């Protein structure tokens, strides 16, 4: 540890202290590598802070399922160690079917999950109403996925970072990264904040040397690694005051998938989550092409209208805050985890769209497995950055 400090060299530099970066740092440190994590302001302050904290096994594709299910199980293994402020709760997800057409989709999912060992239960209209009395009448039914969970992401990221630090990782906040590559992380304006506690040698250093650099900066990853195909996909969220008992499970409309796949400029879907406090988190929306972080009123209004259509009781509830965030979206909807073909020292751990919280632990495992020569638990090919860069390489 002290040798790293005096020489300024680390085995790994992780750029980005969001949940993915924190998970990676934790994994690297656990395996005895010397890690430094760099971020501008606070741990878990980007998309990590904006997201819903939904830990979900998604069946969009085999690759997506493999990563989310693997990751979900890692969260389950960790749950006993998670502190209270992480608010991990295995409340389960109910995919809600509004009509018979969506009910057919319920059965398809049931089949898919059951085949792969995920405990699921089909609910008819009556059972659904019993489990969630505040859904409007007339729903066709739903699919209950019992092992899905929710948590509070900034504190989860903090927990992982604390653990990484306990295993020797260094955290540098208040640092803005200008450039990465060729074994060097160049900082924009020196080290500030927490870094001031360390020795003078480090403070003066505007460059960090590391054999391995992990770009875990989310939606802005292409700024540091030009050529990554990542687009910002803006989302809105609203949280209410405390209404204990109003909602018990994370509820997602089956139209969510249409929303996530949509290529038009924006879409909204019914997606609500109970917080252990009794507050209700209301989402979700997706937009391409929006760069500013201000609330888009038209989209916010439509998102809330959609939510009210499914749960009329939400109308009179007191809404305390609204916010936006930027998901990192890739063209094939799978994250980028692995070596970047353009630079031997750069690795990517980004592009998770709306599944960053879920997939963080699995991402960290398979990334560090790749680097340390351990056989990953799931095939890594679908997530390799080289899949996208193939054209660049051959050109």
């Amino acid at each position, binding site marked *: 540890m002290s040798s790293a400090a005096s020489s300024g060299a680390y085995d790994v530099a992780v750029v980005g202290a969001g949940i993915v970066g924190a998970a990676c740092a934790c994994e690297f440190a656990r395996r005895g590598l010397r890690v430094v994590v760099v971020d501008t302001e606070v741990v878990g302050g980007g998309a990590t802070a904006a997201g819903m904290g939904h830990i979900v096994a998604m069946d969009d594709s085999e690759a997506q399922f493999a990563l989310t299910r693997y990751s979900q199980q890692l969260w389950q293994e960790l749950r006993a160690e998670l502190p209270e402020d992480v608010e991990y709760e295995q409340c389960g997800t109910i995919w809600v079917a509004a009509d018979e057409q969506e009910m057919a989709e319920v059965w398809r999912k049931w089949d898919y999950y059951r085949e792969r060992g995920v405990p699921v239960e089909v609910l008819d209209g009556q059972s659904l109403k019993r489990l969630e009395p505040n859904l409007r009448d007339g729903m066709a039914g739903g699919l209950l996925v019992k092992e899905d969970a929710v948590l509070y992401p900034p504190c989860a990221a903090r927990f992982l970072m604390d653990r990484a630090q306990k295993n020797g990782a260094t955290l540098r906040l208040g640092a803005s990264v200008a450039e990465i590559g060729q074994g060097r992380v160049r900082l924009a304006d020196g080290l500030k904040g927490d870094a001031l506690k360390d020795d003078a040698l480090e403070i003066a250093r505007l460059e960090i040397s590391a054999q391995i650099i992990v770009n875990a900066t989310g939606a802005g990853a292409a700024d540091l690694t030009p050529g990554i195909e990542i687009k910002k996909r803006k989302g809105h969220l609203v949280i209410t005051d*405390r209404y204990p008992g109003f909602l018990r499970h994370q509820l997602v409309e089956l139209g969510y998938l249409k929303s996530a796949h949509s290529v038009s400029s924006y879409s909204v879907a019914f997606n609500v989550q109970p917080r252990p406090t009794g507050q209700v988190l209301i989402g979700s929306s997706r937009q391409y092409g929006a760069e500013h972080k201000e609330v888009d009123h038209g989209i916010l209004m439509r998102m809330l209208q959609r939510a009210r259509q499914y749960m009329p009781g939400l109308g009179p509830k007191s809404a305390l805050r609204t916010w936006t965030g930027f998901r990192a979206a890739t063209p094939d909807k799978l994250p980028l985890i692995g070596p970047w073909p353009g630079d031997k020292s750069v690795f990517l751990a980004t592009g998770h769209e709306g599944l960053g919280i879920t997939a963080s632990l699995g991402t960290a495992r398979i990334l560090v497995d790749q680097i340390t020569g351990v056989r990953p638990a799931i095939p890594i090919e679908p997530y390799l950055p080289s899949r996208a860069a193939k054209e660049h390489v051959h050109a």
Partner: protein
Amino acid sequence: MLSPVTLMVNGSPVAVPAGTTVAVAVVAAGQACRTSVSGEPRGPLCGMGTCFECRVAINGKPHCRSCQILCEPGMEVRTD
């Protein structure tokens, strides 16, 4: 002279002069308005509707800022 208003606070009748706010009725009856997240009893702090400590349930509707609501006859106020 306006006649007094009688409302129910946690099941017990409380009589107050007309024009009294619900917060005043609750405090004058010696009750706390709400219980905080960690279980502390709380009463009004700012008296002007910005601190949210005076929230009570009125006629079944939760989170009503009682310092800004006038007592009405027959109102059911609950602080639990």
